[in-house]
Every structure is written in structure tokens, then in C-alpha cells.
């Protein structure tokens, strides 16, 4: 049963078209960033209720004198309320980059903030932590790196018990982590991995989601495969992560999304996937796939594709491991429900997120490549026709069909007759040599294993379809060979 921890939508403050436009801009910026390997995103945790109450107060930029006054009041005020109020004002002000800059340049400001963070006044601690959180979210490296003196304390507090506070520390740490390698070079010896491993046992969903976020940032770092993932794999984190990904009534979407991404980053770094497999990663991801397929049928829930993506990736990559082969003999991996689930997800993605279809097809390839069992499932569940429907999306569809056909006559018989021939004649009309090339491969297999296929091909003007490509360098030889087979058997 999927439950949504936070379901509130923020009221729109601008028009839908403007939002779409902004989203396109952000998407373009993210693509550019990814190509430059600078994909960095931070999470800002602001209490919505608080924010609404404070509307209108954020406009002010504070100068040195004001900041100093707030700090002094927070430190030395006589009234508890006064001290808190000063910090709250400071925190609001720190939403502005100009104020942030002024703050970090003020001598002793961070020191004071850290002192308040570690004081025994609970509410001051919280507000000080919120101030740090604002700073951690900055786009200016200097501002973020000014938070470094606080990290040992943030890590220490992860072993505490106050869930709100821990959540705040985690999001702050996550933002710091993603900032630069210099920051991570400090956090790793300070024990961030063991601290997270201890904290992951928390029963609070908000803490877990925050932890997943922080961990995903850590695992996404450039140097992660060499410097971070080995120690993560050596800790109890993977076991706990897999536990948190077990489908069932307790599975929470927000938490699962974070840890699925963590798993993906670990897996695609190829550090020690065999270990993950022994810990049950394949099995967990497989069950999760089934559960996801069930969920997409039941709800209109936004966000399931956020979980589908890393699950598809994790499974696909793990299947390439030698160790997977051994596990594959278990029933789990021969379960035809996996294929059923994948197609239900493909249909869902076709509606919700077509750009993810190639990833789904990638999994289908890895499932069927060396598995007579899954190839049989494709046939017995009548999935060839739906598969053909996706031909225009990716030529991996042709690869999958080849995976099935190459297993021999028993398989080709089930591929024939049906819509396959006309689909192939269609693809032969494409100009894309990749697509045509794959079509030719499939034709060879069909001609070889299925009596009557060549005949039918001829009757449907197959030769003419082939002629178009007689002069194309990459295709010539295969075209001629097929023409020979078709004509002379």
C-alpha cells in the first residue's frame, strides 16, 4: 500500500504558462549541467506554515550592524523569547543572498552561530540550525563553505533523538555534501558514513527521507566510486536501504525514491555489485518492480515514475553481473510476473514519461538476452503486439525480438504469423541504418528458423523494400544475403 507522507501542493503564485516556461528553462539548465558533469541540486527545507506567516518580511536586506545586533541579542538577551526572536529575524534575513554574504564576512558570526547550535537552549538550537540550513542552500560557494565549522556538530546530532532537528541537520549536510569535494574531504574523516549508518535506524519517515537525500548526494559525487562507495558498502547502510525498499504496507514513496536513487548510484558505479546481490538487491528490486506495476494501476499518483526510473536502472545493471546468473536460477528471476510488470510500467511511462521508455526497454533486453524463460513469457503472455507498438520509440524493440528469435524454431514459430511481418516491412522503409540493420538481422533469423517466412516476405513485396538499401555501405552485404536466401532458400 503506497502512502504519501506529504501531499500538500503549494498554492500557485504565478500562471501555469509561466510555470511551464520556467520549468523548461530549468530543464535546459540541468541538461547543460549534466553534460558538464556539474549536476548539483540542493533541497531547501522551509516550514510552509512558518513561511506563509512570515510573508512580506523576507524583502529586507540586513546590514552588518543589524546582523551584529541580532547575534548579540541571541547570545546575551535576558528573555528567552527575545533571544529566539532575534534568531528568527536573522534566519529570515538569511534567505537573501546579500545578507548571507554580509553575514559570513562578519568576524565571529559563524562561531557565534555554532555556539548557539550547540547550546542547551532547545529552541535556539533549532533556529540556529535553520540559519545554517539557509546558508547551506546558497549558490555561492563561499557562503556554503562558511558552514564547515559546524559539520562535526551536525554529525554528532544525527545520533540524537529529536526528529525535526535531525531532519534539518540531514538536509543541511546534504546541501553541504553536494557543494564541493573540499567539503566531502572534511565530512568523510569526520565519520559521516557511520553517522548515517546509525541514523538510518530511525523510525521517523521524515528523517529517513532526509537521510536518503543526503546519502544520494554523497553517492553522486564524482569521486564516489573510489572514495565513498567502498566504505558505504562496508557499512550496514546497504542492508538497511534494501529493507526500506521492501514492498509492503510500510513502504513510503518519498523514502523509497531517495533510497532507490542511492542504490542506482552504487550499482552503476560498479564497485562491488556482487556484494549487493548476496544481500538480496536483485530480489528486492524485482519485488519492487512488481509492486510498482500494481501501484500504477491503482492510483493516479504523481511521482511513481520517480521511483520507476532508478528501479529499472538498478535491475538492468545488476542483471549484467556474473553473480546475477547464479541468482537467476532461483524462481524469482524466472517469474513471468516480472515481464507482465514491466509491460504495465511501459504503458504507464508511455502516458506519463515517454523519455523513460528506452530505460524500460533496456531492462527488457537484459531480461530476455540470455533467458529462454523470459523469452517464452513474452510469447505466452501475448506481448509481441504491444511490443511492436513501441517500435517508433526505440530500436531496442528489434533487439528484443532478435533475442527471442535467435533461440530457435520453437520461438520463431510463435512469432509467426501475426503483425511482425508488416512491422518489419515498415521499418525497412526507414532511412536510419541502425534500425534497418536490426531489421535485417531479425529477418535472417526468421528466414532461418521459420519455414514460409521467406515466402510470405516475397509475397508482400519484401524484395522491393530491400532494394532501397542495396547501395548503403553498412547494409549492402546483409541485403544481398537476404535477397539470396529469399529467392533460393
Amino acid at each position, binding site marked *: 500500500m503506497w502512502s504519501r507522507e506529504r*501531499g*500538500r*501542493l*503549494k498554492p500557485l503564485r504565478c500562471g501555469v504558462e509561466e510555470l511551464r516556461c520556467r520549468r523548461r528553462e530549468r*530543464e535546459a539548465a*540541468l541538461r547543460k549541467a549534466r553534460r558538464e558533469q556539474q549536476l548539483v*541540486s540542493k533541497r531547501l527545507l522551509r516550514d*510552509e*506554515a512558518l513561511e506563509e506567516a512570515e510573508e512580506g518580511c523576507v524583502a529586507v536586506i540586513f546590514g552588518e550592524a543589524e546582523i551584529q545586533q541580532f547575534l548579540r541579542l541571541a547570545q546575551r538577551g535576558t528573555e528567552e523569547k527575545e533571544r529566539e526572536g532575534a534568531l528568527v529575524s536573522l534566519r529570515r534575513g538569511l534567505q537573501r543572498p546579500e545578507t548571507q554574504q554580509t553575514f559570513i564576512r562578519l568576524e*565571529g558570526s559563524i*562561531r557565534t552561530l555554532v*555556539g*548557539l547550535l550547540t547550546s*542547551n537552549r*532547545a*529552541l535556539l538550537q533549532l533556529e540556529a540550525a535553520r540559519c545554517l540550513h539557509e546558508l547551506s542552500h546558497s549558490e555561492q560557494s563561499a557562503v556554503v563553505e562558511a558552514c564547515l*565549522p559546524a559539520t*562535526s556538530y551536525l554529525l554528532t546530532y544525527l*545520533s540524537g*533523538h529529536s526528529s*525535526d532537528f535531525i531532519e534539518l541537520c540531514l538536509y543541511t549536510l546534504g546541501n553541504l555534501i553536494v557543494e564541493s569535494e573540499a567539503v566531502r574531504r572534511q565530512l568523510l574523516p*569526520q565519520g559521516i558514513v557511520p*553517522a548515517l549508518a546509525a541514523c538510518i535506524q530511525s523510525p521517523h519517515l521524515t528523517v529517513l527521507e532526509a537521510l536518503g537525500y543526503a546519502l544520494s548526494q554523497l553517492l553522486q559525487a564524482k569521486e564516489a*566510486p573510489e572514495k565513498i562507495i567502498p566504505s558505504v558498502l562496508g*557499512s550496514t547502510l546497504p542492508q538497511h536501504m534494501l529493507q526500506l525498499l521492501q514492498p509492503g504496507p510500510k513502504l513510503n514513496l518519498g523514502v523509497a*525514491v531517495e533510497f532507490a536513487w542511492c542504490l542506482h548510484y552504487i550499482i*552503476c*558505479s560498479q564497485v562491488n555489485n556482487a556484494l549487493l546481490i548476496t544481500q538480496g538487491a536483485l530480489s528486492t528490486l524485482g519485488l519492487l518492480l*512488481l509492486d510498482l506495476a*500494481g501501484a500504477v494501476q491503482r492510483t493516479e499518483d*504523481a*511521482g511513481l515514475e520517480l521511483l520507476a526510473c532508478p528501479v529499472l536502472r538498478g535491475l*538492468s545493471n545488476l542483471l549484467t553481473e556474473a553473480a546475477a546468473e547464479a541468482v537467476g536460477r532461483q524462481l*524469482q528471476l524466472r*517469474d*513471468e*510476473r516480472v515481464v*507482465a*510488470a514491466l509491460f*504495465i510500467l511501459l504503458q504507464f511511462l508511455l502516458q506519463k514519461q515517454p523519455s*523513460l521508455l528506452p530505460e524500460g526497454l533496456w531492462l527488457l*533486453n*537484459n531480461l530476455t538476452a*540470455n533467458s*529462454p*524463460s523470459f523469452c*517464452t513469457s513474452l510469447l505466452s503472455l*501475448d506481448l509481441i503486439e504491444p511490443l511492436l507498438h513501441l517500435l517508433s520509440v526505440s530500436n531496442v524493440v528489434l533487439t528484443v525480438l*532478435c533475442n527471442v528469435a*535467435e*533461440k*530457435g*524454431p*520453437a520461438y520463431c514459430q*510463435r512469432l509467426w504469423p501475426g503483425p511482425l511481418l508488416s512491422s518489419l516491412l515498415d521499418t525497412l522503409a526507414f532511412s536510419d541504418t541502425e534500425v534497418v540493420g536490426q531489421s535485417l538481422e531479425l529477418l*535472417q*533469423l526468421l528466414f*532461418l*528458423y521459420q519455414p514460409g517466412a521467406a515466402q510470405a516476405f516475397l509475397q508482400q513485396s519484401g524484395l522491393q523494400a530491400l532494394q532501397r538499401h542495396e547501395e548503403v555501405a553498412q547494409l549492402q552485404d*546483409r541485403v544481398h544475403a537476404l535477397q539470396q536466401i529469399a529467392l533460393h532458400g
Partner: protein
Amino acid sequence: MQLPPALHARLAGAPGSAEPLPVERNPAAGTAPFRFAPRLVRFPREHDFFEDGDVQRHLYLQDVLTQVGGAPERPRVPEFTCQVAGCCQAFGALDDYEHHYHALHGNVCSFCERAFPSGRLLDAHILEWHDSLFQILAERQDMYQCLVEGCTEKFRTSRDRKEHLVMRHLYPVDFRFDKPRKSRGPAMPGAAEQVLAETLGDDGVPSEGDAMEVCSEHVEPPPEPAGERRAYSHRIPSTICFGQGASRGFKSTKKRNKHQ
């Protein structure tokens, strides 16, 4: 894309699959000029194939307030006070109380009532401050445990431990939860001022030291950095400490209820 109607039912059904069809390959398959062979495909981290999904992931991260929604309404309750003896802090929200409770009454030492951020630090404190057996053992073996979660190193003295924390774990030199009790040393007038300054908290917060610290230094001669100290170094008996632990004797003028 139309899926066969039986598919959904199959998903909900029992695990299992039909017997795989027999595999029977012809050696001519995939031979030149043809080249198909089934292949498992893997993509490494930075591959362009992942671009779309990665971008969606990051849009989600940036967008999390709008998509997944903000924090739920904090339940407000009629004002109530903390029930712990001697604490009269008042609260209007359960979350605030939760944090207060854990910060101040959570990991509290039953001997000296100091509060600690975690069980680990509390345990270390009790051992090092209140366990006489610890002191005896410490004379003969490494007993001071590293404060970092996951590190199993132990040290002969708390100074050695601090050095380890700074050098190995990049902790700040003035890490708040590792202030050694000074058994001697600050006997010079200048040092006395220094002590008072410490009492006020070198982070500038008055009397903060009380609540959170960990270790004590017992009968530990500090390394003498220069000659001028030596004349005073044995004046103060080791059982009296001038650091954070003694701040209760050197109360600042802003006397406060230490339970707040």
C-alpha cells in the same frame, strides 16, 4: 498501447512461469555478414543514456516543495510546561517540546545532570567522569574512546584523544563535547581570567559549558610549554579543576536555572 486483458490478472497471480520453449540454434544464425548475438548491456554512471532520468530527478529535488508538499501542519496545543523536575519551560507545540526534551532531558547523566546530544557521548562521559574503575584502568591501558561514531580507537589520555580527533577526524580544536577538565595549569592571574572567559563560554554564550561536555582529565600533568608556568604548576591540587566542570563555582553574574 493495448495490453492483453489477462496481463493485470497475471500480475496479481502467483509467482511462476510456463516451461521455457526448447532452444535450438542453427550455427548459421548470426554468421557473416550477419552479426546478431544477444548481449547484456550495462551503462556506467556518466553515460548520456541516463540524461533524461537524471534531469527529472533533479527537477524533483529542486521542486520538492511544490510536488511532494511541505511539512504538515504543526499541531498546536494549549500551553503546557515540561514535567521534568525543576524544569519550568513552557511550550505551545509538541515538536518544540520534543526537541527541548531530547536536548535537555534526553541523554542526561544521573550523577551530575549534564545533558548530552547522544547516548554514545553520555556513555563516554559517565565512564570517564564517574567511574572510579575507569581511572584505575586508565593508568595501565588505553581507555579514552574516540568520540566519532564508527571509530574504535582508544587512547591513554584525553589529550591524545583530542589530538586524534583533530588530526584524524578533522574535528575543530575546540570541539564542544570534548573539553578536558583542567586539573592544573591555569594558576597564573592571566590564566584565571582565561578560566572565567571559558566559563562564559568561548563561543560567547554564558554558562553554556555546564550542560554539554564529556571527559575529565585525572591527575594528568600537562606538557609544560615554557618555564614560566612551572613555578605555579603544582600550586593547585589536582582534585580541583578550573575548566568547565568548575564553572558552577565560578558562576557568572547571569545566574540561571541550570535545567533550562
